[in-house]
């Protein structure tokens, strides 16, 4: 680790009614990966926004390369070499990779753009980083992982000295994360200062040198990663101890009745001859790499996408599910991996979202019975401990974990017995994650059945009673939780990928 390249001292920032940052200290050295951790709302993003000039600090100082600096906007920070790689990728899908990397600073040739130079430079950049991407390819044709690599390449082409990764792994598969880490280690060797924001503990242990923890806008402390334990860090983050031990044994009795049976389901290219059973009170984990066809299976089962063939039995009865309406009628609820797009109507209130799937129950003649609607949504706010000022609040103003609770409330209000959780805790912080887990356990103990699709191994091992592993649209195996290890799951998930 080299000398300190960037130091933030006593940064203070208030918004109306919120003290977002309370005299926070943070520094980055050359050639280190410094993790910035904390629950959602702890102030990590605000701190980084203050650094890159998106927010103006109230007090404190930023010392960059030995000089006191203040960036007034993201462009200034970028020009000085401080760059954020955002969680949500800022790429233009219809342009090529090279066009994206040089967007806004295209090399000129006469009146036009020097395409050849742009492609050549991109290629050099990728060679330099040892990434294999064709600069001529359209951005939207790349996987999320590759797109992220492009974003990093773009950052480096700006002659970055400090790169901030804001939850880079949220949308990546395990393999892509490995690739990302190779690049990060390479950047480290070149004496760049790297800030790594993530919720995933195992990544922090793998890649970072130091960890700084924030909680409720205050600086809690900085540890050397090697000398600290996972529990220690989590403890600092949430101020309490959380156990993430894998489940030892199935909580579902083996003779529990089968509530859902899927036979030879085929849909599109991503679902091939999928058959499985779900028991009452069971959490069935669907594991696999991204693109293994798990979401596609769920969507086909739910009637959201057309299926070519396959039979579905619910409580032993053969049913025909052609659309989500049918699925909902049979008591299936689907919680999408992309909550904002498929889960909630963010521009509407908590109450309206709660009754979205069962509005018929709240009609009084032609009119909606708003009082009953408010009552039921208040009831679920209480039961699920949703953090919202009231049921009138727009869903867009809630945090990810609370939005997820609104979706759960929607299906519970509809009285669904089979719930499909697709990546239930994506983008949700550790504390809220545990609440969602607790809720899921509570639901199955009440006799609901859950299909849980998850790309996080710890989540699969912690929550599932039984695990189905998918790879390239097929089910590659079924493992009881008592025999499951991350090794035998990964083995099945990657079996025919060479």
């Amino acid at each position, binding site marked *: 680790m080299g000398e300190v390249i960037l130091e933030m001292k006593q940064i203070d920032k208030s918004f109306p009614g919120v003290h977002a940052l309370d005299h926070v200290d943070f520094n980055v050295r050359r050639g280190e990966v410094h993790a910035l951790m904390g629950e959602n709302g702890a102030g990590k993003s605000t701190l980084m926004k203050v650094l890159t000039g998106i927010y103006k600090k109230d007090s404190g100082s930023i010392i960059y390369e030995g000089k006191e600096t203040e960036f007034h906007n993201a462009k200034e920070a970028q020009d000085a070499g401080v760059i954020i790689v955002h969680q949500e990728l800022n790429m233009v899908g219809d342009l090529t990779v090279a066009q994206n990397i040089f967007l806004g600073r295209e090399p000129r040739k006469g009146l036009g753009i020097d395409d050849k130079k742009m492609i050549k430079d991109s290629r050099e950049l990728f060679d330099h980083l040892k990434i294999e991407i064709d600069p001529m390819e359209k951005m939207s044709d790349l996987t999320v992982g590759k797109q992220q690599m492009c974003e990093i390449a773009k950052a480096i082409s700006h002659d970055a000295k400090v790169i901030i990764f804001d939850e880079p792994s949220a949308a990546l598969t395990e393999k892509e994360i490995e690739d990302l880490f190779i690049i990060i280690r390479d950047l480290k060797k070149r004496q760049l200062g790297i800030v790594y924001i993530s919720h995933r503990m195992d990544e922090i242990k793998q890649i970072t040198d130091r960890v700084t923890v924030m909680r409720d806008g205050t600086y809690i402390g900085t540890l050397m990663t090697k000398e600290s334990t996972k529990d220690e860090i989590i403890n600092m983050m949430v101020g309490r101890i959380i156990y993430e031990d894998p489940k030892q044994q199935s909580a579902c009795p083996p003779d529990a009745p089968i509530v859902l049976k899927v036979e030879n389901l085929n849909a599109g290219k991503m679902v091939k001859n999928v058959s499985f059973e779900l028991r009452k009170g069971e959490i069935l984990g669907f594991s696999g790499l991204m693109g293994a066809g798990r979401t596609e299976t769920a969507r086909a089962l739910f009637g959201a996408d057309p299926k070519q063939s396959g039979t579905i039995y619910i409580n032993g009865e053969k049913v025909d599910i052609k659309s989500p309406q049918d699925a909902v009628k049979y008591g299936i609820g689907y919680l999408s991996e992309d909550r904002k797009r*498929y889960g909630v109507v963010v521009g509407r209130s908590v109450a309206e979202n709660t009754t*979205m799937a069962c509005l018929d129950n709240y009609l009084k003649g032609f009119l909606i019975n708003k009082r009953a609607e408010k009552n039921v949504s208040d009831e679920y706010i209480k039961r699920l401990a949703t953090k919202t000022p009231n049921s009138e609040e727009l869903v867009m103003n809630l945090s990810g974990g609370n939005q997820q609770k609104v979706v759960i409330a929607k299906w519970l209000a509809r009285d669904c017995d089979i719930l499909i959780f697709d990546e239930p805790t994506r983008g949700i912080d550790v504390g809220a994650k545990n609440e969602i887990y607790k809720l899921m356990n509570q639901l199955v103990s009440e006799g609901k059945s859950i299909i849980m699709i998850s790309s996080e191994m710890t989540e699969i091992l912690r929550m599932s009673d039984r695990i189905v592993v998918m790879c390239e649209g097929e089910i590659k195996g079924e493992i009881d939780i008592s025999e499951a290890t991350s090794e035998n799951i990964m083995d099945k998930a990657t079996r025919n990928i060479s």
Partner: protein
Amino acid sequence: MNKKSKFRNLLSSQEFIVFIILILLYVGFSVLNPQFARYKTLVTMFDYACFYMLMAFGVGLTLITGGVDLSIGTGLVAYAAIGGTVIRSFEMPVIVGMLVTLLVAVIFGFINGVLVGAMNLPPFLATLCTSMIARGVGSLATNNYATPWPMASQPGGWFHNIFKIQTEAGTLIPIGFIWVIVLMIVMRYVLNSTRFGRYVISIGSNKEATMLSGVNVKYYHVMVYVVCGLFVGAAALAYAAATPTIQPGQGAGMEMDAIGGAIVGGGISFRRIRNNSWDFYWNLCHPGAESWFAVYWSECELATDYYRPCTAGRCID
């Protein structure tokens, strides 16, 4: 929120500013051309406002779902022309003509709905095509002749009384705006307190999530265009009552006045429509008014010369 800040919000709201501009425009025009300030001009304006606002109601719904209906302009004229032909050429009672007008409007709305809601065509394209078809159908049905509906004094002229009544002293009272206000209140409830309204807004806000909640999105999406058609049908009746003859093939561009009115007059961006429909229909008060000014802006000179004979003619009738 205390009273004062509420009041200040009202003053600085776009709707209020538009309202003030409206009054200033009226005063301005009256000063520029004293003819404008006459009662007859006001009556004519209400006539026009009535069908523009009915169109804006309908197209407003499609705007809320994130779509648009471009067929309402030529459609309105075509439906009125077809209705007129039924009365004139087939010698049917007026009521039949009115029902036919509404029915044709609903059929066209349904076609739009199927194209957009069920077949997922881009609303702009689909309804642009329907708009051209409507123009053609209108011309075909009337054999391309100008088609008058019965005058107020003729048999069957009673339908004028729906939109405008004459007192014994001979004063015309444009009661059409009463229906508009009633409809405004009704639609406000429809949007905010009925299943239909709730789903329409949800579709506009997040169609996928609404579909995945088990809502029959296709049905409601089609219905939006059907209801839009119904409103345009009603507007066609108001149009027939306001204009001496229906000239088939006309009407292109009227949809823009209605759409422009719904957006600008309401002071609403698309985003706000979807997120805050509460006062959408209150805001629609303006577009109609705005639209007549749009009309009068360009035709101010003509207004007194051209429209006067019509109104005057009807007065004599």
